[in-house]
């Protein structure tokens, strides 16, 4: 269609709209394909997270009773799975070249965020630190360092903020094992730092506010869990909101060395729960105030 002629016949109009149809179909098809791929990424990422939990709470294998060996095994298995997901990203990166990335960002971001969650969990078990933006972007690029697509700060932060929920489950299920309370406290401190860092980003990113609330709840669960699991099964009646703080107080009261307390907890837990060390701590009541749960620790 020349730039000079306006359209004045039906056939000319139909010809132009034919072009629009192809363009719109092309767009919708691409979007559908990317949504499907994103769903595949989500599924694989969830599997990685389950895998990590499974290995970290696996008591059956005697060869790696200490946490480091177990973490190393979890991380190496997870790396393989993560590689699979990275291959998926590489596979559809051609659909996201140039200006297309931002056109389809919303189609791919659910999977991408789930992947970042799995990746950051793996990274935490390996290093005890939070993965940086550049390290995440590096996993999303080929051997020559070309990015499959740009990583948006938004996806990075939202992916990370889901990590706290997984760490909560990890901490809770660690409690019954030897050294578990120390582990739970360590995770607690880490999650608390994450929450503090993320607070300053909250005004910029709409969905982050919701996730920050979830993080507060996770944090509270770890704090309560550290305490509840111990005392409920020692048949001690202490108000639940005293959380991790009570562990310290009571252990001094009973004058037990930490290792013995660990063993005691471990024994009561296994007799009370059988094999179930899942992350289902009972929450007494939801708390309005985010900050409240943070006062009783360390």
């Amino acid at each position, binding site marked *: 269609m020349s730039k000079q002629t306006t359209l004045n*016949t039906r056939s000319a109009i139909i010809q132009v709209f034919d072009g629009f149809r192809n363009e719109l179909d092309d767009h919708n098809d691409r979007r559908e394909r990317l949504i499907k791929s994103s769903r595949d990424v989500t599924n694989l990422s969830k599997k990685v997270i389950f895998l990590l939990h499974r290995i970290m709470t696996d008591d059956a294998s005697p060869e790696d009773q200490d946490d480091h060996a177990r973490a190393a095994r979890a991380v190496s298995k997870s790396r393989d799975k993560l590689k699979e997901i990275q291959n998926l990203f590489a596979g559809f990166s051609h659909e996201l070249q140039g200006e297309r990335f931002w056109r389809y960002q919303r189609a791919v971001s659910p999977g991408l965020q789930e992947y970042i969650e799995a990746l950051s969990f793996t990274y935490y078990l390996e290093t005890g630190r939070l993965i*940086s933006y550049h390290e995440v972007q590096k996993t999303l690029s080929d051997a020559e360092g070309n990015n499959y697509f740009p990583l948006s700060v938004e996806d990075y932060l939202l992916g990370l903020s889901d990590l706290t929920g997984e760490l909560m489950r990890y901490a809770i299920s660690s409690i019954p094992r030897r050294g578990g309370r120390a582990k739970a406290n360590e995770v607690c401190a880490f999650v608390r730092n994450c929450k503090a860092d993320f607070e300053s980003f909250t005004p910029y990113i709409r969905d982050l506010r919701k996730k920050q609330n979830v993080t507060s709840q996770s944090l509270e669960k770890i704090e309560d869990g550290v305490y509840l699991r111990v005392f409920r099964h020692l048949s001690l009646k202490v108000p639940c909101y005293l959380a991790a703080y009570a562990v310290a107080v009571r252990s001094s009261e009973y004058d037990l060395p930490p290792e013995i307390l660990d063993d005691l907890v471990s024994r009561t837990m296994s007799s009370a729960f059988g094999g179930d060390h899942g992350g289902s701590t009972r929450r007494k009541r939801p708390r309005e105030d985010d900050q409240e749960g943070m006062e009783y620790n360390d």
Partner: protein
Amino acid sequence: MDSANLDFINRMLEQDSELREKIKDQVTEFDKKTRTMTGLLNKIHSTPTAQLPLLLDSVQPILESCKETTGAIANLVPANQFWRWKEMWSISLRNAVFSATLIEYLRSGTLLTLPQVSDILGIQPEWQDKFTLAAEDYLHGLISLVNELSRLAVNSVTLGNYEEPLRISAFVKDLFAGFTMLNLKNDALRRRYDSLKYDIKKIEEVVYDISLRKLAPVSGK
């Protein structure tokens, strides 16, 4: 989070929010212009045909001035980020498409193509990844055009112009034939497309009244 990463994230977020503010200022300008145009164009419903060119001429300079705004926005948007920001100005842009196509219809009875509208709004082909007129926005503008023409069909009769509704009817039916070519998904465009049939019905009723009373020569079409 280590401090280098924290700084980096903060810097990125800060940059984006500054950019958003800058784009917002331009979009406010764009919005003012398009609203002034639609305000003026609303007078077509009470302007006799003879005085119409004068009215359209008064809108023309504002339409021309949209070039400055599109240029300013294109300057702000970073490479490849068109789709990230476009929602900020898409309402204004659709209104500009509406104004441009309405003016052209009133002058020549024909439809401006997408490249022609782009050209009028000063949108350069090399801005493809920063500022462009997407098919979706052009089509939204055309639906607004049909909505407006259905009103004009009624009002031109009030002004004693019995031929205009026939012209509008033929034009809108051609345009509608174009829209039926599209496979629309269940989105905003689809919902607005569904409204077209009410416009067409309204126009047909006016045409019926005119032909029944033999107020205008009904040609073959």
